[in-house]
């Protein structure tokens, strides 16, 4: 399974904090996962996941660009951070 997490404004826009999805060939990298999430859950998800500044983390590390994902991975999507 893939654990998919959402935080901050994006979590609110999606109305979703956490998803579990079966790992599959169709979800083999971050770009494919994000496109699938945008496609499968209606207009709100499509709009929110199209934001240009979404940050992605794979197994709790920020990723620049795309990256392969596999069964057991934890993937997070979130807006730019504002701590400190």
């Amino acid at each position: 399974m893939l654990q998919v997490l959402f935080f901050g404004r994006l979590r609110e826009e999606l109305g979703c904090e956490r998803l579990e999805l079966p790992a599959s060939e169709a979800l083999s990298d971050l770009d494919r996962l994000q496109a699938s999430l945008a496609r499968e859950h209606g207009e709100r998800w499509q709009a929110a996941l199209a934001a240009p500044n979404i940050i992605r983390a794979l197994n709790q590390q920020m990723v620049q660009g795309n990256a392969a994902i596999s069964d057991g991975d934890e993937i997070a999507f979130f807006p730019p951070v504002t701590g400190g």
Partner: protein
Amino acid sequence: MRAVLEVNIQEADFDLRVLQASLLQGRAEEGGVATFTGYVRVNNDDRGVQSLYLEHYPGMTERSILAILEESAERWPLFAARVVHRVGRLQPGEQIVWVGASSAHREAAFAACEFIMDYLKTRAPFWKKEQGPQGEHWVDARESDETRAQRWQGQQ
């Protein structure tokens, strides 16, 4: 000598004196301790902030800050470095974040402390939401924070 590094993510407030003492551990030498403390904006602008909610990504938060501390200890000769960051609901004027670094060289303590804050602002998964009389809204990231973090790259 390995630097002593520590990260605390907590709802509770923190005590500056206790934190500072934890950076020394009987190893104070010439030099000293540099610190930075961030506070919740007070209710003095037109948005009238009444409270602040800090969301974070448990697990990644601790990991990402520890990675920042480890990088600071590679760049500068530190005795110790520590970050305490609060989460949950905070009131105007309350302490949010504390960063401290101790070193025999004051320039190392200053540089590490500023580096840690700059990276924390752009690499650690926290999100601020302000509550005011017109409702609540998520705080936007500031481009200046990203610019400040980037100036450390390619620099030793």
